[in-house]
Structures are given as C-alpha cells and as structure tokens.
C-alpha cells in the first residue's frame, strides 16, 4: 500500500453484470449523472463469437456516450465503455488494454480480472459495482478493490433477476452499500463528490492530523467493541481506513465521526472490521515458498521428531496456513517422512477465521496452485474448491491477538508475513521477542518481503536474506515473559451478531492473572458459600463451602436447588428467587434459622441476578454469628413469625393457583370433550375418504402400470429417435457430398457441411431463401428444374460447373418426401465429378491412343519380314503373320485355327519337341539354327526363337520368331573364305617378294667380276633383272599358275627375232611350267640367248636357234621332259669358249637344282647344244 501525494485522477467505476444484466444495466445507466467526471466500464459474460450490440441497446438510456472498447483507447470521463465479446480488459494508466480471452483452467472470470487491474491502477479511485448474474465472478475482484482502498456497491439481490453474483459479493462481508440498482449511481455520485471535497491538499492534511489526534480515542472505542487494541498499529493504514469510512458516511469532520462511533456500535464494529482487511493468497511470492521448502521444510523433516508445529499469525482467511500445510504434506510424501503436522492459524478477524475453517475457496483464489495440488488437496463443490479432510485436519484456526495474548510454544516454524508492517515499531518490538520465545531451538521464522527482525538482531540469525527466512538464535536469552502481558480482555461474545454462523470458540486459556489468583483463593477460603442458580431454580454452580447447606432428598435426585438445600432454607430461598426474578434486584433474607444439632444458627440469604447474565442468579448463604441468648428468643420468635407469614402467604398463593388451575382444567376438559366429538365425526369422514382413496389408489395403480408401459415404449422410441438423430448428424457430417434441403419455397431447411464449398451458407441461414445466398456455381435454372421435379415426381440430373476452381459437380434434384409420402420440398445433392470427368476424358484419349497403337502393331506384325506366330498347347496356330506363312509355304488363313499336324503333312519332329519343351519348362529356347527345304527356294537357313507366353498363371501359348538368315550366312561364309584366301595370297606374296629379293641379291653377287666397271656391272645386272621381270610378267598374267614355255621363249628371244628373219625354230609340245620352274628356265633361256648373241649363233645374222621339247608321261600327273637348245649356223667354234661366267653357273647349278634336271652342255662344231632332262608335275 503506497503512501504519498494523493492524485485525484478520473475515478473509474467497473460494473460487472451477467445473466439478467440487461435490465439492471439499463436501469443503472439511466441514472448516471451526465457530468460527474467519472468513467464507467461495463464487463459482462459474453460468448466469444457472438457480436454484441449492448452499446446500441444502452445508448438510448444513457445521458453520456456508450461505446465498445477499442484496444489502447484512453479512459475518458463521462463515458460508458463496454468490453467487447471474446476479450478481457485490463487498465494501464488510464488506458484500456484488451487481451484475447485465454483458455484458463477455471471458468472465465472477466469481472474479477478487470476489478483486480482496476484496484491495482486506481487504488482509492477504484469503484466496483456488482449487478445481477449467476456464479461468483466479481467477488474476488471486489476484495482486491477494497484492500486497495476502493469502494464496492452491490445490487440488492431481491431486485436482481439472478442474485448469484450480488449474493456472492455480499458474502465477502466487504460491501459498502447494498442498494436497488436505480440508486447505485446516485450513491456513487455522493461518494465521489464528497471525496472531491476532501481532496484538496489542505483539507487533506487537516483531516489527517485530526484523525491522528483522535486515534487513541478511536482505538479505545474499537477495543471496547472488538476486544482488539489497534492503538499500536501504524497510523497511516488506520487513517486511510477512517477517511474511507467517513467518506462513506458522508461525515465532514472527525468529531462527527467520533460521535457516530460512540453512538453506534455497528459503525464501530464496521470500522474495526475495516482495519482487519487482509490480503492473503495461496503461495504468495512463490520463490519464497520454494526457498522455504528447500531450506526449512526439508531439513526439518529429517529431524528426529514425530510432531511438526507451525504457527501462522495473521492468517486471515487461511490461505497461508493451508499453503504451509500443503508444502509440508507434499514434502512428507516426497521424502516418505510422516510426521504429525499441526498448523495453527490465528487472527483477530473472527469472520475471516470462520471462513478459513470452512476451507472453501473460489477458483480465482486457488489460481496459484498446480493441477496436482488441486487434485490432491481439494475437492470441487459447486464450482468452489473445498479443502480435503487430510488438509483440513492439519490446520486449526483460532482467534488470537499477537500483541496481547501469550504466544504458542515449541513451534518449529512461524510464518508471519505482511503483518508486522501494520504495527508500530514499539509494537513490533513486543511481538518479535514473543516469536523468539515461541520457537524451539532450531525453529525458523519467515517474514514478508519488506519486513525484518528490527532491533532484535541477536534474537535471530539470517538464513536467507532475500526471502526473509530467519533462524532462532538459541543462545540469545528471550526477552519475553507472559507475566508482563496486559490482562486479557474478555471478548464481547454476545454482541457479535453479524454474519457469523457458529459460536466463537472459547478463548484459549490464559494463565491466571495475579488478581484472579487472589480472588480465587479468597473465594475458596473465606467466601461464604455461594451458588449460581437459574431462574427456575436449577443449579448452575455450587461453591465448595455450600456442602454445609446441602442435604439432598431421598428419591430421584434432581438438580433443583430446592432438593439440595436444607429443609429450613428451601422456602426462603424459593421466595427470594421468585422475588429476585420478578424485580431483577438483589434480595436478602435475614436470620433464617437452621437446626444444627447444637445451638441454633442463623443464616443470611442473599440472592440476586448476575451482572452479565440475566438468566443466572447468585445465591450466597452467610452464617450469622450466634446471637446472645437473650435476644435469641426474640430472634427465634421473629423468625417464626416471619416463617409463618411466609407460609401463609405461600399457602394463599398456592390456593389461588390451585383454583385457577382447577378452572382451567374444567374448561380444558370441556374443550377436550367437544374436540373429541369433532374428532369422532372427522374420523368417520376420514374412514369413507379412506375407502374412496383405496379405490382411487387401485385405479391409479393400474393407470400407473399402463403409463409404465407407455413410458417404456416412449423411452424406446426416444432412444431410437436419438440414435436416428445422431446417425443423421453423423451422416451429414461424414459425407463429402454437399446436400441441400430446401422447402417448397426454396428456403434452406438443412445442409451438410460440404455444401459450404458451393454456397456461402452458415447455420443461421437456415430459413432463408437459397437465392439470397451467394453461390460459386452457375445455376440459373433452379426454379424451372424444381418445377419439373414437381410435375414428374422424379429426380433430375444436371452437370454444373464452378468456374473459379474448374470443378464439375453432378447435381441431382429430388423431391423431398416425408414419411407419409407427401412432397415437402427438394433435396439437392452435389457430387463432385471433377475427377470423374477428367478420368473419362483421359480414358477416351487413352482408348484412342491404344486403338492407334494397336493398328500400328498389327500392321507391323503383318508386314515384318521376321516370321512370327503364336501357338497354343495343342500347337494350334492362334496367330501367324505373312512372313512365316510364306516360309511354311501356306497362306495365313490356311494356318489359323489349325494345329501343326493339320497344316503340315510331316511336321518337323524336332520343332514339335522344342515347342513342347517350352510349354513344359516355361523357358524360352533361343537361337536355334534350322535348315528347311523351302518349296521353290531350296535349302534355307533360319534362326528360330521359341518363347513362352503366360497370363500370369501358366503358359498358354508359345510364340515363334523365325528369321531367314540364309543370305546372310552365305555372304558371311564367302567373306570368310575370301579373307582366308587373301591371307594366303598375302603370305605367298610376301614369300615370293622376299625370295625374289634374295634371288636378286644372289644374282648381284654372282655377277660380280673384278674387271667390270660399275657401268658394265650395272648393265649386266639390269639385263638379268629384266629377264626375271619378264618371267614375272608372264607368271602374273596367268596368276602364277602355269606359264607356257613358248611364251617364255618368245619373250626372251623377241629381241633377236623378227618377222622377216625367223631365227627361232621350235619343235615339240608346249610346256606348262610352275613358278619356280619358269623362273629358272627363264633365266636359263636368257643366259643361253645372251651367250648365243655374244658368242654363238645369234651373233651372226644367219645363225639360228632350235629349241626342242620332248615329253613322255610317267604317271598321271608327272612327265619327263627333255628340253634341247641347239645353236646352228653360228660361228665356228675352235675351242670350248670360256663361257664359265654366270651362264654356266646357272646351267649347271641353278637349273639342276631347281628342276632337279640333268644338264648337259656340249659344244659341237655347229655350236652349243644345251639339254636339260627333268620331271614336270601337273596334268596335261
């Protein structure tokens, strides 16, 4: 609670209303003063998704503007603001802050939320008004507003349509005024104006000083009334509260207020109660409780003690005590350390204690508790939370004044939070030692956040400075003694008539004060015997010494004083009691004589009402000193006379009583008689009524049974109906099909959720014509279609299109038939066929494609040069193409449908074997090489594949693929042959070339002569090479097969012979020479010719050469040849010329070798004769 300069900002009045609020709000708003300068905020319970037009409804009644709040708006005076649905309102400075309604665990309490915020921000300028409504929203907020110094007004519950909220607010005991709703605004005006008047600074100060001055007097008055001494509370708090009450009462001066207090007990009590307004919550400042849990509770539970005692002074409505109990219970369970827990909660605020004992809290009060805690320690009762027995048992609540009454003792923990701040420092100094005294050696003290242990540091050590946890310093000596306490004031028991339900428990026993002690002793020892009796003579209390006078009667004992007293005393005492009862005064009877077995004794009787309780009387019997003998007789006589008088008067009285009673008795008797007669006749009537009733009863019974049956039928029906309804509901909701039910006028009766895709339709559109609703599709023809359906009584189908999304729907309109088959509207169902349409289109396209592809394939099948066919298990031709048909030599038609045996006279067994193999193994046979004599085409080679065709389960056909590879193969073979040949030839060629080169090399060496010049050598070599070349040419011309000898001869001798001059004479057959033979002979001929040209017959013009061949067959392919070269007409030869040169070498060696010839050289006179005999191979 802050002190400081008072700012009188705009007073803000929060008005909470719920059910029945409209009437109340209208009435309230109508009475708002137009220029009070206050701001009015209305908080209601509204459904979050419904628009509210409250501001429009109230505006006509209101003299000031009424608007719905916008977030962030400033609060302007003389303006009514209404919280919009779905939001909670809080105040920040003088601005409104709207937040979305949260999903709280508890009920939605917007009024509490706003009031709390209002209290925080506006404090003493906060006003709250609670109007009609159910539930308890607003009560918690009201408490906070009151605690902050604001004001609370509530609608009279008799005038409220729903009194729940007002009653709950009143039950807090904190409401300032309960009024009919039309007077609330007026009262607010009064209070605000009054406060304003008080609010200028000077008046403020004066007022405060005046209050302070009167404080002791006020405190004294309050102590009288409430028994609590507030004189040592901090003045600030008290001053404010006094000011408040003064404002409420519209008292201007403190003197006036003091008067009121003195006159009116109720006002004094109210003020006393105001002082007690305490704010307590569950787990207030949670971090403190966490610290307590760790640093105090846990170690405490580990100690070796069976009991845990805790004291919470100033517990008010008990939240803190329950908090501690919960803390301990939780920890005990967690640590499995079970102790007996005792939490003592005390306060001077008796109603608050009652509430604490009750143990019932509103949902907002238990906000700080977790779900588990609520479950464990509370049970829900009518929306409120009641502490469970386990929790409740731990806590004991009792009135106790911390400053005046002696403290508890042997405590483990004292939690005294936010109490000391209200006390003056002197009072605190008295309280803190008490707490030190009350704790055990290792006890702890927990204080509120701004409290400390004051000057008494040595009494406590700090355990946790931030969280205000202290430990008892056991070594410090306690400064407290109970004997120093002021006497306890007796509580004003009878005067507390407000609100409390149960009697206050007797105060805790205080120790006997010295005075009382003295009194007791005196009473015991010296006082005359005395007794307390009731007005009717029953004994309430007997003192010890009364035993002298007690002489109980024989018979059944009773508690009447009469029966206890001695005979002599009974009459006087009875009389005295009667007198005392009647007069209310003390009565004394003197000198009553009693017989005491000795000298007569006299007793003085004194009987009078007690001071406090008018129903009790105090009897005192004093023995009088014995009188002297002389006056004894007088005394006795006097006594006797007195006795007689008493007796007589008693007698007279008794007689009178008796006669009166007798009369009464007579009359009563008469009355009784007549009553009796009445009763008799009544009885007869009743008898007959009874009989009627019996019959009725029987009728009723049978009716009842009928009703029973009907009822159970109805119940069954109902059950079926419910089931049908929920089936229908589920059907509606589960279907994706949009179905719209229209009545005969095309108004919407019902629809499935899917319909919202097509129409902008909501639940509240039921009843509106369909044409009112927006539609996403083109459908102008509803009316016509409906008319048609009406006539035909049949359904109608149509496709409708939604342009925007490209969807297509199939709309079916059918007549709506009731169960009696009456047409009562139309049912329109929309089936989304978009996909279907797409599929149809795709399907069409696919089919087309397939057809085209199939045509292609067929064409291919028919025209491909590869032979294809398909045969089933009977080897029947299912399918065959032109190519294969041709190969088989029959037309396609001749094959189809016939088996292989029917088509061919002698089908190939191997083929049949293959086909069957494929059927059996299911495996294809590939790359078979088959040779078939095809009619008209000779032997053809085919490459055949047989492959199985299955339908997923078994092979149902074999396909054949036949390729004519004859030409291919032939070509391949030919090429291969050619390649071979080429290889050979190349080899041959290489060989020949090498050999020729080697030969040339040899010849070049052979021709070498020392005397040759290079030019001559070259010439000679060239000639030989040319000879070889000529032979080569000839050989080449016949492909190196066989050369004719004649050709060779001609080639060699061509230079020497001409047409005119034939110098060659040829005899004998031609010879076919092989390559090496030709070469050797060619060289030979060349040498012979050269030599002949140089030295022989060809050197002269007429010289001639005769070449003869003789051949004789030896065998089929071998013949013997004799070749002769004879030179004639040549120059004479004298001596054998030296023709040894190259030529002779050739003759003798080469030819001989190559041809294996017998060579002879003979130089005759004619010339040279050369002969060679050799064998020749080859056919003739």
């Amino acid at each position, binding site marked *: 609670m802050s002190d400081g300069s008072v700012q009188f900002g705009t007073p803000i009045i929060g008005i909470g209303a719920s059910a029945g609020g409209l009437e109340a709000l209208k009435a309230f708003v109508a009475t708002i003063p137009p220029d009070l300068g206050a701001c009015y905020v209305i908080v209601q319970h509204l459904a979050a998704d419904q628009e509210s037009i409250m501001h429009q409804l109230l505006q006509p009644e209101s003299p000031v503007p009424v608007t719905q709040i916008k977030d962030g708006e400033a609060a302007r005076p003389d303006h009514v603001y209404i919280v919009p649905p779905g939001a909670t309102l809080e105040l920040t400075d003088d601005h409104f802050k709207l937040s979305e309604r949260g999903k709280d665990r508890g009920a939605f309490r917007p009024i509490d939320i706003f009031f709390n915020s209002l209290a925080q921000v506006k404090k003493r300028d906060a006003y709250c008004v609670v109007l009609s409504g159910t539930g308890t929203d607003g009560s918690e907020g009201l408490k906070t507003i009151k605690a902050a110094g604001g004001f609370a007004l509530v609608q009279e519950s008799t005038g409220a349509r729903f009194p729940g909220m007002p009653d709950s607010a009143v039950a807090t005991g904190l409401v300032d005024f309960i009024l009919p709703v039309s007077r609330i605004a007026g009262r607010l005006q009064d209070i605000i104006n009054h406060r304003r008047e008080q609010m200028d600074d000077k008046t403020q100060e004066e007022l405060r000083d005046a209050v302070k001055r009167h404080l002791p007097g006020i405190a004294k008055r309050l102590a009288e009334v409430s028994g609590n001494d507030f004189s040592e509370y901090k003045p600030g708090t008290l001053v404010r509260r006094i000011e408040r009450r003064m404002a409420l009462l519209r008292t201007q001066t403190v003197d006036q207020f003091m008067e009121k207090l003195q006159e009116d007990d109720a006002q004094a009590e109210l003020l006393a109660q105001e002082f007690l307004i305490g704010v307590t919550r569950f787990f207030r400042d949670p971090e403190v409780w966490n610290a307590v849990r760790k640093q105090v509770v846990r170690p405490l539970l580990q100690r070796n003690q069976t009991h845990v005692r805790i004291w919470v002074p100033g517990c008010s409505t008990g939240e803190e005590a329950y908090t501690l109990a919960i803390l301990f219970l939780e920890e005990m369970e967690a640590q499995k350390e079970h102790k007996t827990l005792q939490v003592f909660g005390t306060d001077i605020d008796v109603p608050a204690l009652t509430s604490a004992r009750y143990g019932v809290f509103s949902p907002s009060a238990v906000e700080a508790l977790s779900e588990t805690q609520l479950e464990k320690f509370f049970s829900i009762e009518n929306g409120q939370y009641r502490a469970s027995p386990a929790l409740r048992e731990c806590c004991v609540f009792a009135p106790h004044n911390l400053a005046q009454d002696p403290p508890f003792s042997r405590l483990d923990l004292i939690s005294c939070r936010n109490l000391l701040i209200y006390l003056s420092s002197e009072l605190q100094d008295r309280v803190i030692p008490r707490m030190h005294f009350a704790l055990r050696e290792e006890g702890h003290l927990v204080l509120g956040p701004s409290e400390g242990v004051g000057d008494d540091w040595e009494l406590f050590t700090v355990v946790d400075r931030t969280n205000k946890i202290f430990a008892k310093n056991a070594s410090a000596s306690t400064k407290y003694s109970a004997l120093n306490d002021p006497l306890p004031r007796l509580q004003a028991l009878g005067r507390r008539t407000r609100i409390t339900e149960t009697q206050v428990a007797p105060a805790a026993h205080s120790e006997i004060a010295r005075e009382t002690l003295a009194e007791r002793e005196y009473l015991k020892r010296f006082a005359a015997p005395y007794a307390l009796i009731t007005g009717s003579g029953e004994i309430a209390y007997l003192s010890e010494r009364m035993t002298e006078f007690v002489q109980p009667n024989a018979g059944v004992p009773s508690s009447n004083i009469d029966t206890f007293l001695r005979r002599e005393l009974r009459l006087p005492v009875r009389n005295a009691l009667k007198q005392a009862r009647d007069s209310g005064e003390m009565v004394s009877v003197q000198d009553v004589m009693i017989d005491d077995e000795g000298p007569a004794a006299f007793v003085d009787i004194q009987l009078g009402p007690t001071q406090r309780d008018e129903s009790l009387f105090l009897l005192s019997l004093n023995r009088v000193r014995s009188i002297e003998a002389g006056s004894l007789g007088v005394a006795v006589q006097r006594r006797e006379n007195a006795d007689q008088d008493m007796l007589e008067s008693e007698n007279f009285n008794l007689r009178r009583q008796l006669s009166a009673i007798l009369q009464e008795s007579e009359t009563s008797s008469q009355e009784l008689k007549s009553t009796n007669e009445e009763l008799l006749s009544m009885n007869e009537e009743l008898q007959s009524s009874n009989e009627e009733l019996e019959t009725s009863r029987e009728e009723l019974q049978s009716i009842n049974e009928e009703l029973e049956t009907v009822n159970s039928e109805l119940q069954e029906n109902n059950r079926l109906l419910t089931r049908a309804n929920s089936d229908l509901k589920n059907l509606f909701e589960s279907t994706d099909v949009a179905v719209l039910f229209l009545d005969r006028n095309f108004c919407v009766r019902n629809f499935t959720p899917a319909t919202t895709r097509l129409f902008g339709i909501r639940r509240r559109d039921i009843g509106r014509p369909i044409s009112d609703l927006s539609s996403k599709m083109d459908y102008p023809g509803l009316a016509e279609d409906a008319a048609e359906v009406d006539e035909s009584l049949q359904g109608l189908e149509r496709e409708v299109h939604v342009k925007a999304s490209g969807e297509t729907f199939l709309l079916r309109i059918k007549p709506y038939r009731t169960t009696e088959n009456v047409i009562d509207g139309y049912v329109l169902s929309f089936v989304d066929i978009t996909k279907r349409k797409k599929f149809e289109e795709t399907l069409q396209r696919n089919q087309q494609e397939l057809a085209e592809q199939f045509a292609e394939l067929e064409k291919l099948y028919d025209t491909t040069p590869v032979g294809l066919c398909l045969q089933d298990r009977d080897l029947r031709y299912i399918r065959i193409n032109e190519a294969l048909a041709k190969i088989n030599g029959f037309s396609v038609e001749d094959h189809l449908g016939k088996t292989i045996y029917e088509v061919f006279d002698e089908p190939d067994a191997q083929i049949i074997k293959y086909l069957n193999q494929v059927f059996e193994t299911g495996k294809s046979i590939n790359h078979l090489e088959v040779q078939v004599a095809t009619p008209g085409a000779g032997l053809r080679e085919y490459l055949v594949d047989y492959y199985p065709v299955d339908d997923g389960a078994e092979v149902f056909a074999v396909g054949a693929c036949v390729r004519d590879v004859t030409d291919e193969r032939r070509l391949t073979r030919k090429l291969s042959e050619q390649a071979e040949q080429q290889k050979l030839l190349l*080899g041959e060629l290489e060989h020949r070339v*090498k050999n020729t080169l080697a030969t040339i*090399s*040899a010849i070049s060496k052979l021709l070498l002569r020392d005397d040759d010049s290079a030019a001559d050598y070259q010439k000679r070599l060239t000639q030989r090479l040319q000879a070889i070349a000529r032979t080569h040419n000839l050989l080449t011309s016949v492909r190196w097969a066989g050369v004719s000898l004649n050709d060779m001869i001609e080639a060699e001798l061509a230079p020497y012979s001409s047409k005119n001059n034939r110098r060659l004479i040829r005899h004998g057959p031609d010879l076919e020479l092989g390559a090496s033979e030709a070469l050797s002979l060619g060289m030979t001929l060349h040498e012979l010719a050269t030599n002949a040209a140089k030295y022989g017959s060809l050197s002269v013009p007429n010289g001639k050469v005769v070449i003869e061949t003789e051949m004789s067959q030896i065998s089929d392919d071998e013949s013997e040849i004799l070749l002769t070269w004879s030179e004639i007409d040549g120059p004479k030869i004298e001596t054998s010329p030296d023709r040894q040169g190259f030529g002779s070498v050739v003759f003798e060696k080469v030819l001989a*070798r190559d041809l294996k010839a017998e060579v002879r050289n003979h130089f005759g006179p004619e010339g040279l004769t050369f002969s060679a005999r050799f064998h020749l191979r080859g056919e003739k």
Partner: protein
Amino acid sequence: MNAQKVLLLEDEAIIAMDMEMTLEAQGYKVLGPCQSVAEAQTVLENDTPDIALLDVNLGREETSFSVAIKLHEMGVPIVFLSGYSPSVVDVPEQLTSMQRLTKPVNEGELMAAIRQAGSLTPM
C-alpha cells in the same frame, strides 16, 4: 682345326647357291644345299653337321621344322631363314630360341649368325 659343317636347306636354287658360296668363302663346309626335307634327312643319315641353316618355307607348303626338331635333338644349333616376317611364322616351341633371319639376307648378318651358332657347338 676342321672347318665346321653347315647343313644348308633352301629350295630356291639361286639363293642356295649364293649362300653356299658365301659360307665356303668364309671357311665353312656346306652339306648340301638340300632342296627338300627328304634330301636333308638323307644327308643327316650320313653326316652330322655342326650348324644348320634352314629356310623355313620350302615350297609346296613344306616347312623345314621336322628336320629342325631332329637337328635340335641332335644338339645342332640352328639358324632359320625365312621369306615371311617372323610374326607370321609359327615356329615350334622348342625352336623359338633359335636365331631367325629374313630374306634377303645381308652377308654380314648371315655370318654373324653362323658364327654365333657355331660357337654353341660343343667341340
């Protein structure tokens, strides 16, 4: 020291003659020249050469390999002569280590091969 005997097997007469002259000029004695396997074998019945100079292809699809193998068994070092390039000629396995010359053969090359072969003969 006796001249080493060289068995010459070559079917082309001129080439044979050439080689014979070359060998004899270098101091070797020539057995043959033989023109066929048959001739060579006849020679071998009567004489054992120290070195053999064999033309691989002897015309009419005859090769000198049969003789060569026999000579090899006899421990006679062999020099092959061929008109075909070496890669084409399929020499029997045991003869692959023998020297090979291609025609036309250089005199120097020939003599070097012969001498080397001759140095292999156990004396």
